């Protein structure tokens, strides 16, 4: 195998393509579909991963969440879980007092949607958050204008609220929201502040929130429990390096407070960003498998097309192979030439596929909420995969060609 072989093989390959345009096109198309599938699948997964990781990072990067239940998806609660106690404001205070690795602790209630009215305008989607003054620092999310909720607001259970940017747009398109009276679920609240914009997370706006003092929330929603409302104690550790010790300290404190016997599992959920990523990976793992299987089947179909055209090509060119052998081609010369021919065919298909895949992901980014992203290595994967298909499915035809007897092939009509 040398450079001379390569050139001759490329000549042969282009010759085959030229001589059998339609058949070659179909073959190339088959491989393209396979590669498009692979690239497309990879780009979807990569896109999801990338944006998720980025945005989790942005979400108040190292925060630790303590909740009634462990975060999980599609799992039936067992009897212990059904009888769990709710976390309380006292639990949050205990953590604040006793966990040295916790720099800031923010307990909060979160109701997924609440109706907010201002005069004749109404929004049904805002997330209602009952918070303490610690919220701002813990979540790295600050008030832009006006002021945030204070300890006094919390203690007095006052009817004040801070609104997110989405609400400003929805309810106060032309007026200044500060000091205006809004109605949350029919109750009057005074707007004391407006949050800074936060942007999107996984295609969801993070500005669609309204904040009230945590005790005001308890006053109006005393019987509201999971899943309509969740209570979370969010902890910001001293730094990234303290995530683990903070988790350990919090676990200790809570187990002591609840007198959980040694060796028994936790009776509360505690998760850091890493745990969140774990869940995400759990979710995408299955998707990954399905997407991989689909890509595999698509590539198989493309590969069988390649094998078919190569077998036909070998048969049709028996006489030519005989002639090449008669003038001195060795078995390995012939083998390589047909292999390279197959790889050229699949390579063209691969490049075509890559182009289409890239285009599709660009379009997807533009016109759909799903983030798609073709990493540079996916281009390598596409090219590599198509070449591999050429080699795998071209090997047998090439081997058949290489073994032909020169005399018999020359006689072949």
């Amino acid at each position: 195998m040398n450079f001379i072989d390569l050139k001759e093989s490329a000549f042969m390959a282009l010759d085959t393509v030229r001589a059998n345009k339609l058949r070659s096109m179909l073959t190339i198309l088959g491989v393209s579909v396979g590669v498009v599938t692979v690239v497309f699948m990879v780009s979807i997964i990569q896109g999801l991963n990338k944006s998720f990781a980025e945005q989790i990072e942005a979400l108040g990067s190292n925060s630790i969440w303590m909740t009634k239940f462990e975060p999980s998806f599609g799992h039936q609660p067992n009897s212990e879980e059904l009888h769990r106690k709710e976390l309380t404001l006292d639990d949050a205070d205990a953590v604040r007092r006793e966990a040295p690795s916790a720099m800031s602790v923010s307990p909060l209630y979160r109701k997924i949607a609440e109706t907010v009215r201002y005069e004749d305008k109404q929004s049904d989607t805002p997330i209602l958050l009952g918070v303490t003054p610690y919220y701002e620092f813990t979540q790295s999310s600050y008030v832009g204008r006006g002021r945030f909720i204070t300890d006094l607001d919390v203690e007095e259970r006052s009817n004040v609220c801070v609104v997110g940017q989405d609400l400003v747009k929805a309810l106060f398109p032309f007026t200044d929201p500060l000091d205006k009276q809004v109605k949350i679920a029919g109750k009057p609240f005074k707007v004391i502040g407006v949050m800074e914009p936060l942007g999107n997370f996984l295609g969801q706006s993070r500005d669609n929130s309204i904040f009230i003092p945590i005790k005001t929330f308890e006053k109006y929603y005393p019987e509201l429990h999971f899943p309509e409302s969740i209570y979370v104690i969010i902890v910001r550790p001293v730094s990234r390096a303290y995530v683990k010790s903070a988790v350990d300290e919090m676990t200790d404190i809570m187990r002591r407070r609840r007198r959980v016997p040694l060796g028994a599992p936790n009776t509360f959920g505690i998760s850091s960003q890493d745990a969140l990523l774990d869940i995400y990976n759990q979710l995408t793992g299955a998707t990954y498998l399905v997407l991989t299987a689909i890509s595999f089947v698509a590539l198989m179909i493309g590969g069988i097309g390649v094998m078919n055209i190569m077998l036909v090509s070998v048969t049709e060119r028996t006489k030519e192979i005989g002639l090449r052998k008669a003038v001195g081609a060795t078995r390995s010369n012939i083998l390589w030439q047909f292999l390279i021919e197959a790889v050229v065919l699949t390579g063209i298909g691969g490049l075509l596929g890559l182009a289409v895949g890239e285009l599709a992901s660009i379009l997807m980014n533009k016109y759909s909420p799903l983030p798609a992203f073709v990493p540079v290595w996916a281009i390598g994967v596409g090219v590599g995969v198509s070449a591999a298909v050429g080699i795998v499915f071209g090997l047998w035809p090439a081997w058949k060609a290489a073994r032909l007897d020169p005399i018999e092939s020359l006689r072949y009509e």
Partner: protein
Amino acid sequence: MTEATVETSPTSSGVIAKPELPSNGKADVLILMRNLWKTYDMGAEKVHALHGVSFEVTRGDYLAITGPSGSGKSTLMNLIGCLDTPSQGEYWLNGKNVSEMDDDELARIRNQEVGFVFQTFNLLARATALHNVELPLIYGGIPGAKRHEMAKQALAEVDLADRMMHRPNELSGGQRQRVAIARALVNHPSILLADEPTGALDTSTSYDIMNLFEKLHEAGNTIILVTHEHDIAARAHRIISIRDGLIEKDERIR
């Protein structure tokens, strides 16, 4: 079709000595065949295409092989050209024992030592005359620029310098055969073989081709050609007649 399995090992007797290497007084032996057999196993019966052929060819000779159809001429030519291997017997070409070579070595011999001209030309239909002539050089590993040079020169030798970029279907039968001859010559092989090179050509074109062979012979090439036409055989220097796989007559006429 099943592959014909043939024994490729030479006679085990070992009595056959290596041919004498050219000495001052002696003519230079290029081909030496001893008791060559070619047997086709057709299942029930065995077809002996050649049974026990022995002869020598000296360098620079011009030999015609004649005989009736089916007598084994092509079989013999294919053995000489190392396209096929004998079932039994010993064959030395240019001092090398070809009958003991493996597949890759034979390919190398075909590439370096033999130029083969076929009755039906066997050109690559979609390649230019130049590329066709370059083919043996490609497998000989000769780099591009030199390859072009050599191929152009070979085409010039057969008077086709002005047809280099033509494809076979743009050439006449005689021109195609001349391209094939250029291809056979391009590697400067030690022997030029032609199996009925004029079989597919009309009389006057045949004449031109025979003139070309004569010219090539005068230039020092060793030529063996198969024909069943007497006037073509008569232009050679030596005629071997074979019948039923055996040499019937071996006469020198010049």
